[in-house]
């Protein structure tokens, strides 16, 4: 139209353009609506008449703008199309032959789009056409080409390649008509392709269309020497590099690309390799491997369980004590497991996201509610929880009255010791395993003795749960089934303290029998005979996984040996608790390109681009209307209000920062800041702030610690990791932290943070429950993992980190201040002034001296609260500041000042 390559889908709509002049007059005639203005000067206006009786007209350019918008809308709705197709000269029926295997899936979409244009062109010249797919050979039905084009979506690539039988069946179905043919080929060689070629050329002209350059696929994945090798095949030599993605689930179960790499093909070779070195944690998550950008079944490789190793999480609570490897409760466990399984160690909440197969709790009795919940969920979903007894468990109230969900039996208080210096009897040996026990048949070493154990309460179901017992019939190993998982308790420690069991070979065998160590066993092909495998997920030709439960089961030997076809699809198969995988390409398969004879015309399929202009024009109309709105607003003087509205909109669009985290986290990492727990009591929070502000000031003046302003920490929402120190004033009104907050606090305490609890009542209750704040502290601390405490001893490092202090007054000159207890074996060495105490920072300090009040100053450094009387009071305030400085120094330097014990020796040496 108009010499331009433009056609309209609804040309009669263009008649509406004739209405435009009428619109022009209408718009001119209607004046803009008046604005109401408040204006006191109106008193002076009364009686003034408009000189010009004509209305303030809409300016011509605004009218033009509106006309253009209307015109653009009308033309847009008329459906203009750029570059409509041209026509095709031939008049024979056209047979479109599709290979239709997985190799053609990559270019299927572009091929079918181009085929539609080819068929439509044929339709315009009145030709008939039919489509056949080699992989599912049906008789061709010649219909008008336009109708055939509409049947094209019925064809989809299939996951197997054409076979000789397919070709024969297709040739049998062809009949004896004359036709031209268009063969959409994937380029791979297959049996019978030559025969097909001969038949087609005999019937008429043959045109071959082959769009993709090469076909590639992954044939094997090998794990060797810590390196994951992905082996790929290509149909051509000198294939350029291809990206390969390792796909797996993240801890939340969402599929993500775990790693990406490149497949490099050596020159002259059709085989390429990509190498990955992945941590075993990542490796075990891999579900499939894909060549990126190639959407075919061959380019997708399912890994199944091949790359998995058993994953065992060992929970370590706090490993602040250095050395003493052999006394560590988990040392023997680690030794027993590290050979055959992947061992992860860490805190529970760090381990759980990795979804380990086995979780080991060695002598751990107290768990935060969130931790307990997550473990329980995990056990019910099939995890094995392996617990060992120990002094802590014996001393705790765990599973005492009621059976704890994560314990197989109820325990008697205290456990028992046999064969010690102060007890009767001999150390006990193990009884032979009963025939019901999974350990049946294992040899019990003669010299194995148990000297201490925790005792199970004799409950009705105890007998069913005992797996092993001592010679006197007391249980040694008990087990409870929970959901799909199980909880196993060894009634002795995991180290050699209570028994010789962990030292013996029996220990490893027992773990093996409990299916804790055994990895997925490699099943031989012969073993598969007679088994039936149900497909769980099957691959489509384009490499997507689909639900496979609708497909019939497959015999075991067929799964290994048969070629892929309608009855055997590649995918994930399941039988009898075992998974197997069948991939499109076997390790020994290669991909070969088909060499077309020289007289056959091979070309790429490409469609001239026809472009729909409707969207562009409608968008233009919309933009013009928006400009018109702005312009009319500006003309009538209402645009000032628009500016305000725009700024309001912008303010709404900007994401509002919550008030919770006062500063962005990256700022917190730049500077050190003292933190206080926000209790919700505004006055108390202000007091905490002022107190820490005063302390920060004093630190700034006297030490090289230069904190920024203190920050209130909301336990529920804020990240604690940035605060070396938290001040937690106890108020009766404050809510208990949620489970999530408890988990966060426990992690904080375990990773070296310190909390100063201040009951602010001069500790009148001596840490008892006699004062309301004391009771509150007990409630709060119940969910926290706090170690044994003792009053700060005179030689605690806290007394000498900066100042030498004897007591720790705040606003009150209270009694004891409590910190983590020194280990029982700490002794004063002769000639040394101090014992060598805790090797680390005490996680909590508890007192009631209301330190914040003594520290509190306003921004000019004036104390806000009175302390004591006169000079004595000022001295007390000074001591309170000194305590604060010592405390922060202790937090930041740990046991550094404990090394002062070496000073005499160092001085000695310097003297020489």
């Amino acid at each position, binding site marked *: 139209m108009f010499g331009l390559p433009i056609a309209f889908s609804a040309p009669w709509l263009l008649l509406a353009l004739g209405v435009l002049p009428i619109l022009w007059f209408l718009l001119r005639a209607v004046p803009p609506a008046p604005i*109401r*203005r408040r204006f*006191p000067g*109106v008193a002076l206006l009364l009686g003034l008449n408009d000189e010009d009786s004509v209305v303030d007209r809409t300016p011509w350019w605004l009218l033009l703008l509106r006309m253009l918008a209307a015109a653009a809308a009308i033309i847009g709705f008329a459906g203009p199309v750029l570059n409509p197709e041209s026509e095709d000269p031939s008049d024979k029926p056209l047979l479109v032959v599709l290979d239709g295997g997985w190799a053609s899936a990559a270019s299927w979409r572009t091929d079918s789009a181009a085929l539609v244009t080819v068929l439509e062109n044929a339709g315009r010249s009145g030709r008939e056409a039919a489509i056949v797919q080699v992989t599912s050979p049906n008789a061709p039905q010649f219909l008008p080409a336009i109708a055939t084009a509409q049947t094209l979506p019925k064809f989809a690539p299939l996951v197997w390649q054409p076979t000789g039988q397919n070709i024969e069946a297709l040739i049998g179905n062809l009949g004896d008509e004359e036709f031209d043919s268009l063969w959409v080929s994937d380029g791979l060689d297959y049996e019978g392709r030559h025969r097909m070629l001969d038949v087609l050329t005999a019937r008429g002209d043959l045109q071959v269309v082959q769009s993709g350059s090469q076909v590639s696929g992954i044939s094997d994945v090998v794990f060797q020497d810590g390196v994951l090798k992905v082996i790929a095949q290509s149909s051509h030599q000198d294939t350029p590099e291809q990206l390969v993605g390792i796909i797996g689930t993240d801890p939340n179960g969402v599929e993500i690309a775990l790693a990406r790499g490149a497949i490099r093909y050596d020159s002259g070779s059709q085989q390429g390799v990509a190498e990955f070195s992945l941590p075993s944690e990542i490796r075990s998550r891999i579900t499939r491997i894909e060549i990126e950008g190639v959407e075919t079944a061959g380019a997708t490789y399912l890994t199944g369980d091949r790359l998995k190793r058993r994953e065992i999480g060992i929970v370590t609570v706090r490993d602040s004590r250095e050395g003493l490897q052999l006394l560590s409760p988990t040392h023997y466990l680690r030794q027993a497991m590290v050979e055959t399984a992947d061992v992860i160690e860490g805190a529970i909440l760090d381990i759980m996201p990795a979804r380990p197969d086995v979780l080991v709790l060695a002598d751990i009795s107290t768990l935060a509610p969130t931790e307990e919940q997550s473990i329980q969920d995990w056990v019910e979903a099939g995890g094995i929880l392996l617990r060992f007894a120990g002094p802590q468990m014996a001393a705790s109230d765990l599973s005492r009255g009621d059976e704890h969900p994560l314990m197989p039996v109820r325990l008697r208080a205290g456990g028992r010791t046999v064969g010690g210096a102060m007890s009767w009897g001999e150390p006990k040996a193990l009884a032979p395993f009963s025939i019901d026990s999974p350990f049946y048949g294992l040899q019990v070493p003669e010299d194995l003795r148990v000297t201490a154990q925790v005792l199970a309460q004799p409950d009705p179901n105890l007998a069913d749960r005992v797996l092993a017992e001592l010679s006197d019939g007391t249980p040694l190993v008990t087990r409870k089934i929970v959901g799909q998982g199980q909880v196993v308790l060894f009634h002795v420690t995991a180290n050699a303290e209570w028994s010789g069991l962990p030292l013996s070979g029996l220990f490893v065998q027992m773990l093996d029998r409990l299916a804790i160590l055994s990895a997925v066993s490699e099943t031989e092909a012969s073993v598969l005979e007679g088994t039936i495998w149900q497909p769980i997920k099957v691959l489509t030709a384009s490499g997507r996984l689909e639900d496979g439960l609708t497909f019939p089961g497959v015999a075991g030997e067929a799964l290994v040996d048969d070629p892929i076809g309608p009855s055997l699809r590649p995918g994930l198969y399941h039988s009898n608790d075992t998974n197997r995988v069948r991939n499109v390409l076997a390790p020994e398969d290669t991909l070969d390109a088909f060499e077309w004879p020289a007289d056959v015309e091979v070309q790429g399929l490409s469609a001239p681009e026809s472009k729909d202009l409707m969207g562009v024009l409608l968008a233009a109309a919309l933009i013009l209307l928006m400009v018109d709105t702005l312009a009319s607003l500006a*003309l009538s*003087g209402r645009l000032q209000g628009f500016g305000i509205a725009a700024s309001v909109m912008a303010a709404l669009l900007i994401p509002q920062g919550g008030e919770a985290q006062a500063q962005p986290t990256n700022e917190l990492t730049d500077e050190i800041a003292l933190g206080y727990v926000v209790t919700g009591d505004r006055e108390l929070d202000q007091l905490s702030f002022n107190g820490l502000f005063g302390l920060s000031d004093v630190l700034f003046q006297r030490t090289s610690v230069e904190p920024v302003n203190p920050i209130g920490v909301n336990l529920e929402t804020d990240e604690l990791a940035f605060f070396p120190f938290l001040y937690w004033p106890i108020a009766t009104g404050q809510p208990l932290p949620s489970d999530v907050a408890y988990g966060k606090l426990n992690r904080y305490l375990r990773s070296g943070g310190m909390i100063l609890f201040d009951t602010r009542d001069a500790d009148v209750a001596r840490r008892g429950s006699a004062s309301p704040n004391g009771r509150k502290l007990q409630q709060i601390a119940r969910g926290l993992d706090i170690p044994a405490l003792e009053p700060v001893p005179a030689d605690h490092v806290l007394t000498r980190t900066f100042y030498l202090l004897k007591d720790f007054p705040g606003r009150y000159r209270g009694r004891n201040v409590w910190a983590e207890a020194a280990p029982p074996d700490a002794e004063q060495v002769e000639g040394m002034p101090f014992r060598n105490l805790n090797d680390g920072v005490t996680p909590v300090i508890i007192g009631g001296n209301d330190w914040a009040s003594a520290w509190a100053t306003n921004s000019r450094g004036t104390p806000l609260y009175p302390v004591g009387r006169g000079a004595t009071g000022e001295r007390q305030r000074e001591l309170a500041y000194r305590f604060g400085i010592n405390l922060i120094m202790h937090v930041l330097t740990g046991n550094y000042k404990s090394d002062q014990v070496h000073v005499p020796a160092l001085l000695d040496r310097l003297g020489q």
Partner: protein
Amino acid sequence: MNAISSEHPQLRRRAEGAAAKLPPLLARADILANTVLLGEHGRRRSGFGDDFWQYRPVQPGDSYRMIDWRRSARSDAQFVRQKEWQIAQSVSLWVDNAASMEYVSDKALAPKSDRSRLIALAISILLIRAGERVGLAGRALPPKRGDGQIWRLCEALMTNDNSDYGSPEARAMIPNSRALFLSDFLGDWNAVEYALGKAADRGVSGVLLQILDPAEEAFPFQGRAIFESMRAELTHETRKASDLQERYLARLADRKISLKRLARETGWQYECHLTNAPVQNALLWVYRAIERGR
């Protein structure tokens, strides 16, 4: 919170809101008053007053109790202590509190009413400090002296009138006193004429300060518009506001010239002040104008 205030939440909130306005206005007025550095304003002659004026030698006719013995003991002659003669003037304020004064054309500016109250209160502070008596025109708040009067003035100034335009208060003028009228003078012209005529009859002289918004001075409107007074009692519709500008400005100039002429005839002084001009200028002018007439 007790039962009464919870039953009448608005009452309490409004009372608090109203009370909250007073100190800021007073503080601003106080600050403003402090910016004016005052010269001497005594009568410069001896008479009854508080301030020391001079010692003079005893003259025949002086009684003994007039002798300042402390001064006389230092020399051989006797002296009499004289004080400066001071006489307090009464100043009546009329601050237009009609709705038209609430008009503000731009959010960055203060309403005219705010500006007029600020000037009125500041001038009151200055005058009361100088020992004059200040009150409101009419019978509401007769002129008094002392700091307490400042508070009472402040409260009285915060009231609003519901009418569209204010008319000057001409009742109960104290003869031979001074007056200060603050308004936009856009309302009834006859009322102004009447009030000033009556004032002239009573021998009251004073100051007219016309306070206008910049938009009222410039008339920056265009397009089709309906202009309304603040209470919508008067309306005027125009199709092309920009055409009106010239004639509006002419009328405004007329009004100003009339005011000036009227002021000259009655012995008053007139000045126009825009709300976007510095308030100190207006205050200083008003103070000098009142002082000049004294």
